[in-house]
């Protein structure tokens, strides 16, 4: 007997989206990826686009996104997801196509692909998980790493002299005529999760309406990479990340 069987339908207030399968997630406790995956799955399901959606997974912690959301996927080379998504959408315009990328993937090695896909106004959704660190490779400096933040490759703290400045790439993408919606969200509270879901829904709807490229940046935690407990990571994110990366819609046309 599973949970749904013992709860009367009228009393059911929450359930796992059908598109999320039962594979144990490889994400660390406190990581934001799990929630963001769930939101993407919910939106796809609620739009009734399960059989028309193709996701493009990145290289980084979300490389195995395709193990958790039960849709067709393509796994991209590092940074190349927007180029791959471009071809999928152009060749199959009736499909719903999104990339799911981290900060290193999107804002370092894949900067050119990101900017040019957005500048062409590809009708795709880019879900951009910004946790200011390279999680999968063990906590190295990312383009979005904050000033003074310590990582494996800036062990004494990031300095502008050595490493330049934290890259606010969503702010750059706002300037491009091809983008229709650029928003910065988070998922550390129930209220934030609700907002983030609304943003994702809007982004996916934009892509099917042919309005151009939508970018949903989710400012996220990496408790392991930041060497904090999940609770500390959430607090640190609110106090530090949100200062550098303020939440809200940056562009919505």
């Amino acid at each position, binding site marked *: 007997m599973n949970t749904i069987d013992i709860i009367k339908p009228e009393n059911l207030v929450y359930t796992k989206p059908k598109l999320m399968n039962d594979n144990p997630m490889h994400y660390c406790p406190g990581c934001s990826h799990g929630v963001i995956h769930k939101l993407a799955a919910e939106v796809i399901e609620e739009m009734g686009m*399960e*059989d*028309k*959606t*193709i996701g*493009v*997974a990145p290289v980084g912690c979300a*490389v195995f996104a*395709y193990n958790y959301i*039960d*849709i*067709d*996927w*393509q*796994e*991209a*080379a590092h940074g*190349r997801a927007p*180029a*791959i*998504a*471009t*071809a*999928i959408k*152009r*060749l*199959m315009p009736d*499909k719903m196509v999104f990339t799911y990328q981290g900060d290193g993937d999107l804002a370092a090695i894949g900067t*050119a*692909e990101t*900017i*040019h896909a957005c500048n062409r106004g590809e009708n795709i959704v880019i879900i951009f998980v910004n946790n200011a660190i390279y999680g999968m490779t063990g906590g190295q400096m990312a383009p979005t790493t904050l000033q003074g933040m310590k990582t494996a490759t800036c062990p004494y703290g990031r300095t502008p002299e050595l490493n330049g400045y934290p890259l606010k790439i969503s702010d750059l993408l706002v300037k491009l005529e091809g983008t229709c919606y650029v928003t910065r969200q988070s998922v550390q509270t129930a209220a934030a999760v609700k907002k983030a879901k609304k943003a994702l829904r809007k982004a996916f709807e934009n892509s099917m309406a042919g309005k151009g490229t939508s970018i949903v940046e989710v400012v996220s935690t990496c408790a392991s990479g930041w060497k904090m407990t999940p609770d500390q990571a959430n607090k640190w994110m609110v106090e530090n990340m949100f200062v550098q990366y303020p939440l809200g819609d940056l562009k919505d046309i």
Partner: protein
Amino acid sequence: MSEEIKLMKGNEAIAHAAVRYGCDGYFGYPITPQSEIMETLMVLAPWKTTGMVVLQAESEVAAINMVYGGAGCGKTVMTSSSSPGVSLKQEGISYIAGAELPALIVNIMRGGPGLGTIQPSQADYFQTVKGGGHGDYRVITLAPASVQEMADFVALGFDLAFKYNNPAMILADGIVGQMMEKVILPPFQPRKTDAEIKERSPWASVGKPADRKRNVITSLELDPAEMEKNNIRFQKKYKEIEENEVRYEAINCEDADYLIIAFGSSARICQKTLETAAKEGVKVGLLRPITLWPFPSKAIKEYAKKVKGILVMELNAGQMIEDVKLAVECSLPVKHYGRLGGIVPDPDEVWVAMKDELGIATDPSSSIKANAGESISKEMISEVITNLNQMVP
């Protein structure tokens, strides 16, 4: 429909052939000496007729990844570039091979290394047939020697790519890309329908219906035991390709005393060399590998039994000669002649080098006749070189 005979450049023939084959998408980035491929496609504007997508990407890296994305949907997609650009594409080609996707890549070679020259070269042989990118993989490699073959190998390349779910490459050089010849264009065939794609490529990521498992296009497998199994499967496929797909042309090889082995434009130049040799009483045959991988090793080994020596002529410092030497197992002298950096030799120069390298004595009084078919004339080569000299990289 009657045959359509046209006069055009090799690069243009590739573009026409792609549209006519029912290609779904071309993704490219400009680079000399192959820009006419995308330029011709943009003029043909097939998105208005067949529905083919043609897109100029921001880089060769993006273009090859667009090919990955399209191929992952079971679509018939291609890209083209020239040597420095193809170096950039190697990452994507490795991923395409690793994910077992069918795709066609065209390399119109120019002289390297580095930015090199825009003049013709065959110096990317190693890169193409020995791997190029990382990992144990192979690319089916077709070497056209005429504008007609440029057109024909689009279909052949796609057919082989889809037969084996493997990348295929047309490896030509600036001469074959730029020279104009007569060509019979293939008839139009429609693009594959969604139903045909599902039938041909059931693994494609086209949106998951409720009644099948999700399709994931990936080359990733972290479990080494599984990854070894994948690699063993690849190797089995490569073996099958080596057994079934070798193609070559043998000209005057049956009663030859010496052999020239050359591919692409070099072979066309050497056709004339056979006639020069015959005038001096020497029977020389020409073996032209059409598939560079799989390499015609068995055929070369057989023909080598009947001759006294082999000259390998390439527009490089000696690359294919290594495969020839492996094929004949050092049973006879195998020498190399090549010009570098974009210089193209003339047929007589090859003959002088051949006599010297292999110690061939001649007797003009015993002149024989040989017909080795239509070679590329000196005039045509000089026209190509002159045209290229007016281009910028």
